[in-house]
Structure formats: C-alpha cells, structure tokens
C-alpha cells in the first residue's frame, strides 16, 4: 500500500510552490485523517493576527 507520508513527500517534490503550505498542513494530517478542528483553530488565530496587524495601522489615529 502506498504510504500517505510518501505521497505527501512526492507531492511537495512535484509542486515546489506548495512546499511551505503542505509542510504546515502536515501538522494536521495523521492516520485518522485531517484534524479539521485543530486546523480551524489555527486559521482563526491567523485571521486574528491579520486583524491585529491592520489595527496597528490605526494606532496613530487613536493616539491623536
């Protein structure tokens, strides 16, 4: 049987542009499938960070 890890390694090698993304994604993949809950939390944190970054650009506004 083809191993899931081997397939992912092959995918990264054939699509180098996906390399970083797939490496991050591997943290959510196991023999029991894709950990959607953990992934959702990670995405939520990422979105929150984006919001914080944009809000920082309004800080001068607040100080004034």
């Amino acid at each position, binding site marked *: *049987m*083809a191993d899931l890890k081997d397939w992912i390694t092959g995918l990264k090698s054939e699509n180098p542009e996906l390399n970083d993304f*797939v490496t991050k994604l591997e943290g959510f993949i196991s023999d029991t*499938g894709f950990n959607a809950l953990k992934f*959702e939390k990670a995405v939520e944190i990422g*979105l929150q960070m984006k919001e914080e970054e*944009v809000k920082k650009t309004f800080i001068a*506004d607040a100080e004034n």
Partner: protein
Amino acid sequence: MLKIKKITIENFRGLRLPVSVDFVKGNKMTSALIYGRNGTGKSSIVDAWEWLLNTSIENLEREGISLADLPHKASGGNNSYITAEFQHSSIGTVTAQFNPKKISVPTRTGEFDEFKTLSNYPNFLRYIDLNEFVCNKRPAERYKYIAKFFGLEKFSLLQDTMQTAINKQTSNLQNLQSAFDGSSRTINAITGLPTVDEATIVAFINTIASKHKLPTITAFKEAGTVKTALQIIVQKNPITKELTEWKAFQLRQNSFYPIATAKTNCIALESLFTDLKQNEESIKQLILSSLYELSIEIIPKLEDKSTCPVCDETFEGDLLKHITTKHNSLSALTKKKTDFEAKKSLLEKQFEGISRKIAVIEAESSSVVLAAFQTFFDDIISINITLPALIETLKKQLRDLTTLSISSDLSIGKIDTIISSEATSKIFVADKISALSKDETTKSLAQDYTNISNIIDNFRSHSINKEKVAYLKNITDNLQVFFNNLTTYIQTEIQNTFTTISADVVDYFNVLENSHPDIKNPALKLLTGKDKAVELEIEFVTEKITPAFKFLSESQVNSFGLAIFLASVKHFNKDFKFFILDDVVNSFDSFKRPRVAKLLASKFSDFQVLMITHDQIFFDTVQKLFPEWQRYKFTAWEYATGPKCKPSKNYLEEIQSYIDDDNPITAGQTLGKYLEWIFGILCENMETPIPYRIENIYTLSEYYNPLAKRFRDKLKLPNTQHKLFGLLDEFETGTIFRNYCVHWKNEANQFTTEEIDAIFKKWIEIEQMIFCNLCKSFVHYESISNTNYVRCDCGATNLLDQIHYTSTK
C-alpha cells in the same frame, strides 16, 4: 510468508470463556470453518479481528456502539483480548488487550508492528459490508468501500475529513467577502465614488473638515481627529447631538429587523416531541429500518419464506406482509424524527440569529434613545439572559430530552412583542429624525458627523476584511490544490488497481455466475465530475449497464462485490495470505453457494481462510469439499459462558465414526441424508430427467435410478465398458442398496453395521471417480458443438477419457 496458527479470544463482545480457532491440523497449516445459528457469537470473532487490526469496529461505530461496550459485560473490561499466533521467522504472537483506563488504546504485546506491516490491507468481509458495497444507492458510499478494498482507506479518510474543512473555510471566506463587499458598498454610497482606497477616504473626510473649518489630514489614521473635532461642534448643538444619536440608532434598528416569530416553530416542535416520546420504544427500533427494507427486497426471492432473514426465527403467517407493516410503521416514525431534527435545528439557528442581532442593538449608549425605548431594551436584556439556555436545550438529542416546553418561555412572548412593535418603533424613530432635521444647518451637521463616523467604521472593517480575505483565499486555494491532487491520486490508483485486478475479477465473477453467459465483463466506473463516486458496470449481451444493481439481481451484484474483494485480497495480501468471510453467502441463491467454495478451491488454495456461516447446507458443502479444514460448531450461546463451541465432523467422518461405534441405525440415517444431497447435486449436474413430484419429496431410488441410467447413456461407447458401470453394478447388486433405499428412514428396519459399511465404502469408490479434488466439483454433463462432455469444472476429471474404459472385445 506469514501463516496463522491460532486465534484465541476471551471476554470480547459475545465471547466470555476463551474461544480458540485452530489453523493447524495434523502438523499442517489449514483453514477453518465455523457454523452457528444467528446469535451464537460467531461474528464476535471477526469483530475482534477488526479491532486487533484497526482498534475500532466500523459497522458497530456506525450503530453507535462505543469502544467501552466491546468487552463482555460480565468481564468489567478486564482480561478482554484477542491473541493471534503465527508461523513466521520473526512474528510469533500478537495480542491486543482492552485497556479500561484508555479504551481507544488497547494494550498490545508481541510483534504487533511487524505483523501490521504484513497485514495492511482489509482481509475480512462481512455480509453487511458486501451488501452495503454493492447495493448502496449512493456512489460515494461505494467509493469508500473501494478505497478500503484497494488499501486507500487513509487517503480516502483524509479526503473526507479535508472536504469538510474546505467547505467550512470556503463558507468563512464567503462571509468575509460578503462583509468586505458590504463595507465597500456603504463607503461608495457615502462618497458617491466607485473606488475604495485610503486617498479617496482621506479626500472625503477633508471635504467635511474644510466645510466646518477644521484642520485637514494626510492619512486615514488621523481621521479620528476630524471626527472628534466635529463631535465637539455637534455636542455644542443639542439638537444636532440628538439627531446624530437617532440616526445611529436608526441604522442599528434597520439591521435588527426583521425578526421572524419563534412561537409557531416552538409549538410545532413540541407537538412532534410529544408524539415521538410516546413512541420512544419504537424509536430504538429505527436502526432496523434499513434491514426491513432489504428484507422486503429479499423475501420474494427466498425459497423458504417462513424464516425471517432479519432474526432467523420462523414466522407463522405472511412474513412479507408482516415485515412491510413493520417497515411502514418505522418509515412514518423515521419521517417524524427527521422532521423533528430539522425543526429543532431551524429553531436553534433562529435563536442564534436573534442573539447576534441583540448583540448589535444592545450596544446602544444614547441616553435619549435608551429612555425612549426603555421597555424595548428591558425586553432585549431579558431575552438575552434566557436564549443561551434555550439554545442548549435545542442542541440536545431527542433521547436526552425528558420534557420540551419552549413556547411557554417568557422570552418567546417578548420576541413576539418586539416583532409586533417593529412598525411603530420605526415610525417613531423616523418622526424623531424628521422633527430634528427641520433646520438645514443642523441637519447638514448631523449628516456630516454620521457620514464621518460611518466612513471611519466601514473603512476600518474594509481594511481588516481585505487582509483576512486575502489570507483565507490563499489558504483555501492551496487547500483545494492539495485536495485536487489527492483526489486525482486516489482515482488514478483505483482505476489502475482495478485494471490490474480486472482479469481476476472477471474470472471470479464467471466462476460465481457461470449460469449466465450473457452477463459478463464486470468493471468499475469512476463517475466524471464527482470527487468521490464509483459505480459498478456490467455488460449484458453487448450493452454496458451502469449502475449494475439496476439490472442484476441482488445475488448477482453480490457476486460482483465478492469478486472485487477477493481479487483485491489476492493482489494485495501477498505476504499474509489469509482472509475472513463472515456469512457472505447469505445473499447468494442456494444453487450458487457451492460456487463460492469452488472459487476458493480453484483460486485460493494457497490462502488460509476463516469461513463463518449460519447456513447448514453451505457448512455441509464446505465440510465435504475441504475435509482438511478445521471445523467448529457454535451450538448455543449463554451470557455467562458465551458460545458452546465444539469441533465438528463432516458427513463422511460422521458416518465412519458411527460405523466404528457399531451404531448402524444412525450411520444408515446419516448416510441416507448424505446420499440424498449428493444425488440431488449429481442429477442437476447431469441434467437427469426426474419424474415430477408435487410434494417435492423424492426417495433415494427416484434419484438414483434415473441418475445411474443417465451416466450409462452418456458414457456408453461401442466395444468398451466404462469403469463406472462396473462400480455402479457392484453398488446395486453387491450391497443391500435397493432394500436400503426403501427403508433407510425407518428405524424399525434393522441394518447391520457391515451392510451400511458396504454401501458406504462402495459409494466412496464411485465418488472418487466422479469428484475432482482440484476444483472441488462433481462431474457434469454438457454438450458443446454437438460434442458431449462428462467432466468436472476444471476438466481434470473427464469421464469420457479412454483411461476410464476397458475393452470388451
């Protein structure tokens, strides 16, 4: 090569005392056959095997049975295990023991990891899985089975779970995009310009600043200074201040309404709840619904229409009508339960929506507005306190709810009050704004302040959502590329694997379905445009039929499914040639069941098999064809001990044993049953004409005489004597066979042990000539292009061969 020697199971599911299945007989590795009526604990063996391999049991999980329920109840979770012993250079024993402290992680001992590397593919098949695979009307379900059979289960699982994540993130992205578009539209409406960027916003703010002689700004982050300065001007004018507050509230009010009444939905849900609770016992039976549905399809095809295929009990009366009534009653209940769940979910979403709206409007801080709408805000606070508890109630399962009375809750009445006051309150706010807007300067100042406030809020939201959309779009795009690659890989693997094994699938299908020459070339078809959809295709005469189950009988599609499973096992399980078939012949027509055994004999002679069946005739067939197998009978089941299990003899061994024990009556009766069975098979094989009997009861003579004549007719050649004729003559004249044929059922007629032994031995001589041990089949008659054949299925035994003749010249 890994060979299995023994499986021992204790305290698992229906097995209490240790049950051992031996795969060694006379120092040789062999297979095993287990017979037992339904409910004697046979399937606990395949359950334990699946648990050993996967630490879960899929079909039990589907039925809501948790891992905690796997040990025998009386064991309290202690000493519940399966042990498999092997013959291998480095794998000796593997044990999985239930761990009460961590039920999802059994305690494993022995060379488990090494064993798993050699037992990676599914090597067990239950009747229920086979039926689900071939008869399930959803191609996606079939896809799951194919992925499993072809060793792609982990890939398929990843595909499934990832699809859910993609759907969720795509939906999140749409929501963010929608919020982004909404803020863009609001900004466009305020500025009157089609573009949304910092320069446009700054220019707009500066226009207002200049109008009110305020300092202008160069960047958006300074926008607050203009707003604050304008606010000071507004504060100095009480009318403008109040006007801006009412305008801000009007915006909130417009997004708060409309709200749909919840009372009607609550009452409808409560009515369904009361109805379902009155049928609570029946609800527990809903799990049987699909079995009843299947039974309705199967019963008309059964020969014995009095034995229930669901519980295996005899039913006096019209079984089909009985099952149909049961099914109809459950169907109505299923519909009500589905309706209840849908209404419950709808109401839950409705309450969550109201909660979100309340969160927006309760942020109101204007003392003028709060005073004018005091009752409204009091109601809002009251509803907001109660709603979370109501939502929690709606999240509960039907079985966990003892009562349901939402409609009488005070907050439901208050929601209706708020709904009924929508028009009045909107008019009130509009009148207030109108009254306060009479002075143009005041009105203009208020509008400028409102615009500044709104444009700042919306541009902030716009900027945040723009970044979020870009971030999430990048993730969903990459996720989709990954998913597409995964899907392509699985589909390619499925197609390639099927291409590789298709010759075997066709071969096995033909063995099982050789009576239908027009049905051929079974194939798998991946449905284009769908990620997870597989159909079974069959060729009928020259036309390809998809899906196959629309055209084939249940028994025929099961042949298809079994052929795919066995071909996969043969293809993948090269290092561990072992598989378990649990009651898979259940759905096969009775005449087809021996073909399953013949298929195993001809194509899987190098495999070890654990065959489990509750069909007595199939058990007898396999016993006869594979005398070298270990055989067990599960005769009964008791809670305190589990199944009563004993080794079993086949017919020939049993007869010999009675003869050895000098028990001619039982030996004679057992031999009679055996001959009746074998004569029936031979008459069919030889296409022997037999006089029709309406009661369908034939004596041995009525079978034997036409059969013997048929052999003589078809094997007769000039100037030669077939050796079988000599054996038949000796059988008929050298024994008391003629007398035995008439009286074997009558215990009053005493035959001696020697007489029964003589008939038995002579028949065995005949059987050795007409039975092929290679393909496990008796000879049959066929005529191809005007040439007659009397030969076995594989052709190794051909009675028309010259070696079977002696010259009479």
